[in-house]
């Protein structure tokens, strides 16, 4: 597939935004459970604002992918069948909850609405946070399923796609939370950092497993099934359009194998070991800038990861577009 930067930014920014929100809310839950000291509401409010900004920018990027963005409103129509439609619905819902969550903190609507048991005071932030969490996970699934549901894109048609989108999004979000904490001098750096490392490691396992699966993948479609001729030697000579067509632009990355390999190796380094090392170093030397660097590097790595995600996928239609003559 041709990696479109609009979609790369859309998915990575949304992932980081969702992850950041989840991190912030996780921080709140920990403090509710008294594992962590309570932070002031500004911390949560500002954090969710950053998450919201990421979601908005991600949404903005998605418009660049559309041919007719002015009709984007129509895209919610087919939620019964289309994961894209579901994503389109879930994203504003999530944004609403994130916004509400941030506002609730900002406005300090912390009066409990009700109480569960003896200890848990359920206030607006908790409700919005919870709803946002559900929406976040749902959005992770919806976004990933856009790709994972296309069964003949076998590289994508895997639970790994959902796991990767979720884990990588969360890892980058927690990494951002660490960076954010470091930036404002909040002591939760270590907390978020630790989670970020754990999620990154989890993502590493899932992503490498996905790569290994794809490396062993046997494509169901071949040029033989594409044209229905049984012979070991079937080679296309002419695709019927010498100047190219939509099919040759949309479904081919047009890069050499070595470039694709380079991108893969880059993301394997940038997304996983480097941020972990940087975060660990930050922990050891109590640096406030290294977590920021760790996030930036991991995010750059995720751009490469997403580029590779697209480039790696071999669309069966490409079997019909192999040669010009």
């Amino acid at each position: 597939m041709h990696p479109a930067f609009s979609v790369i930014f859309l998915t990575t920014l949304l992932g980081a935004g969702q992850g950041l929100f989840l991190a912030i809310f996780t921080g709140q839950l920990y403090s509710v459970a008294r594992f962590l000291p309570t932070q002031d509401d500004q911390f949560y409010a500002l954090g969710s604002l950053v998450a919201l900004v990421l979601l908005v920018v991600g949404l903005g990027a998605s418009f660049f992918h559309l041919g007719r963005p002015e009709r984007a409103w129509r895209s919610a129509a087919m939620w019964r069948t289309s994961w894209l439609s579901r994503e389109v619905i879930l994203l504003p819902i999530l944004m609403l909850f994130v916004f509400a969550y941030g506002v609730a903190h900002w406005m300090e609507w912390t009066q409990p609405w009700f109480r569960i048991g003896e200890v848990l005071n359920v206030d607006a932030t908790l409700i919005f946070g919870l709803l946002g969490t559900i929406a976040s996970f749902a959005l992770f699934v919806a976004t990933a399923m856009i790709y994972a549901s296309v069964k003949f894109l076998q590289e994508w048609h895997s639970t790994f796609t959902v796991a990767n989108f979720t884990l990588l999004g969360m890892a980058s979000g927690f990494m951002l939370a660490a960076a954010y904490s470091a930036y404002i001098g909040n002591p939760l750096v270590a907390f978020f950092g630790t989670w970020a490392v754990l999620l990154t490691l989890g993502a590493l396992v899932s992503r490498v497993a996905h790569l290994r699966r794809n490396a062993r993948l046997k494509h169901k479609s071949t040029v033989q099934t594409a044209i229905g001729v049984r012979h070991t030697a079937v080679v296309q000579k002419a695709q019927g359009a010498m100047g190219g067509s939509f099919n040759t632009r949309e479904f081919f990355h047009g890069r050499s194998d070595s470039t694709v390999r380079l991108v893969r190796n880059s993301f394997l380094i940038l997304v996983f070991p480097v941020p972990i090392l940087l975060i660990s170093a930050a922990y050891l030397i109590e640096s406030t800038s290294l977590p920021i660097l760790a996030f930036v590097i991991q995010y750059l790595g995720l751009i490469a990861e997403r580029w590779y995600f697209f480039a790696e996928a071999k669309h069966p239609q490409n079997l019909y577009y192999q040669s010009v003559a």
Partner: protein
Amino acid sequence: MQDPIAHSDSTVGRVEVKETTCYMCACRCGIRVHMRDGEVRYIDGNPNHPLNKGVICAKGSSGIMKQYSPGRITKPLRRKAGAERGASEFEAISWDEAFAMLEERLGRLRAEDPKKFALFTGRDQMQALTGLFAKQFGTPNYAAHGGFCSVNMAAGMIYTIGGSFWEFGGPDLDRAKLFVMIGTAEDHHSNPLKIAISEFKRRGGRFISVNPIRTGYSAIADEWVPIKPGTDGALLMAISHEILKQGLFDRDFLVRYTNSAELVIDDPARDDHGLFYRAEMHVEEGCFDPENKLWWDRNIDGPISTHTPGADPRLMGSYKLDMDEGIPVKPAFQLLKERLEPCTPEWAAEITGIPADTIRRLAHEMGVTARDQKIELPIPWTDCWDVEHPSVTGNPVAFHAMRGMAAHSNGFQTIRALGVLMTLLGTIDRPGGFRHKAPFPRPIPPCAKPPHGPEAVQPNTPLDGMPLGWPAKPEDLFVDADGGPVRIDKAFSWEYPLSVHGLMHNVITNAWRGDPYPIDTLFLFMANMAWNSSMNTSETRKMLVDKDVEGKYKIPFIVVCDTFASETVAFADLVLPDTSYLERHDALSMLDRPISEFDGPVDAVRIPVLPPKGECKPFQDVLIELGSRLKLPAFVTAEGERKYRDYPDFIVNYETSPGSGIGFLAGWRGKDGDQVLKGEPNPKQWEMYAKNGCVFHHELPPSYQYMRNWNKGYLHWARAHGMIRYAEPITIHLYSEVLQKFRLAAQGKWPGRQPPDRLRERVETYFDPLPFFHRPLEDQLVDTVRYPLNALTQRPMAMYHSWDSQNAWLRQIHSHNYLFVNPLVGKKHGFADGDWIWVESTLSKVRCMCRFSEAVEPGTVWTWNAIGKANGAWGLGSNADESRKGFLLNHLISEELPPSEAGEHLSNSDPVTGQAAWFDVRVRVYKAAPDEPRVTSPQFDAMPRLPGQEKQRGKWQAYMAGVFGKK
């Protein structure tokens, strides 16, 4: 969007449907042009048309894009004063100025020396008018593109069976069981052949394709027999050898309808050696083969007049006639048998690359199918000897062949070999075999003759003779007292005696060299001689701008008439903008190359559906206007007054001679339109064609549809309707006495004209009365070890017969071309699929990209022809794929042979017919250096846009009829 079911095209805009005839290629299908608000909305096939029966091809469907192409020329243009020719600097002028220029110049030439004016047209099918103009002008220097197309096919077949493939005849696939196609590209008789092959296959017929390349039609063949280019003759000889050996020939057919049993004088000492023994009896004089020859009858064991009732002639053996102290004679068939004896399948396998067993099997398939699957139709008919036959029978083996056989310097004899094989199988004008199309069959050869000497060309006088014709003996040649050529292209000279279509491919070189003489004005119509229609294109472009010591152009004045800004337009001094096919009247005439069917004559017309673009004027109207201004006799009254208002008026009222009743159109003749082929002019003829889909189809009664060479009823009907002069049998020339006459002349045994000494051996060798295989001339003269590969071209179906780079849709299918090579060639020379390579001949080299293909024989490389274009031509942008990635093989092909004893400047052509030997070219290939630019070579300076040409279209084109032109 509106529900498509509620949408009807008929309610969008002002809708009109007009019928006319396509001209996106030379196939000429009937079309319906659907118009919306004056713009072309849709062109589809006319379902009632006999030729295409409603189908249409890729080009026909893209007529819209040709109509609205920015490559159109819209104004007459004159080369700017002081501008160099070829720089394409023009100024727009009025038609009045253009006509005045031409009238003055041509009038002067006609008064001084008419042959200083040369008119050559790329596209034929308009030859009846262009040829008439040339003849009336008085110049012999006229021809259409046949010389560089397929004249070998026309001549080889017509000199053998009195008809040929495509317009004049073809395979009867409705009834054939076995179809063998040899050397046919994706072209020629495009839609009808596609229809016929597909129906043939659906009926379960077996289709064999012999071709170095498997594309197009060959793709759907049941068997592909890859062959080395230029060796078809050997294959055919070996097949005939096997057919003779197994006795699989149709003896009865050979005896009765061919000259197989006729006795040939067989005494090398005699001056009439190799001629038929002609008995002394009264014979009519005429351009037919008189029946004064003899058979050797097996019952009386002696000579007997041919076709004597009850006679049973010998096909083999050698005999002595009693008269003149015993004249040794042999039946022609015996001579053929002797010729074929050494041509074993093993011999041919070596030459053709086809295994001997395959050759033998092919022969058996043909012979057994012909013998055992006989067709008998309950159609009674009477032959020329008054024998009544209760039925028409046929042997269902059909052949088709085209340029693959023709465009070699051995093509004529190869095609003779094909004609002989078809004859041995007994398949001529019989169901399931080869069928003629009107006006063929014609006498062998047809009656029209070229002028016989320089005295035929006189100032202010029409040419004495036809500009083109069919020599039957040395006296018919168009040579001077020394045996030198009179025509600028040297056609009908001893160099190419039977060049029945002329040699357009040598005109520019000869005119540039002044050999045999310099000319003044070269008028080119629709011929891209500065590009894909010339051999040796790079040098040809230099010749067109070359000057003599005084600084004058060696070809002083060049007029180009074309619809599009072709490469050749850049080299014109005067450019005349032609119309598109949708903007003009045309007559696809019986006088020319009509679209007849097997069942009878068909001709067709074009009627304009659109007004001419800009100031475009149909070329036919230009000729009528010029003819009138120059007062050429056919175009003016006895008083010198203009006779015809315009082309439509001319078409209706012109008669070949006053009162002949024969004119351009065969349909609806006579005052009331109730006569066919012959009859008084009908003032309402155009309307009647318009009412009938622009086509006239006269279906013959079944008894006239077969065996027409010898069908008494048909021949008398054809004579009564002015199609032939004699109702005499057209006996097949298995043995060609015509060729033998030229050979005798070369041997010094002919009492009349004889060739110059340098050409004696050449004429003697190639004018063999029996087909034979010889290596192509280029093979004999170049180092085939250094240049081991044959390079071929063919036109893709989507661009067949028309260079459609100006067509926005078709050029998306073929925007540039690759050299197709077998992977073994790449491996041997160290390059990979898609690499840039050089292709080099003895003449020149081109750089291009290669594409590996398993569908090409390893000794052959090939490419699509005429995809490559010169920068800026045809209205294309300077980055167009056609010029950057496309290439032309023509640069590699010489128009002349290396000097030899036979001559310094012999054309690279068939020594019999002058057919351009495009496919003889030998090349080698090697990888381009890594630092070379990734563009094809050679490149040429960009051709600027011409005055009157639309400006370059932008990035987008969204054609929607009715709104496109208004945007």
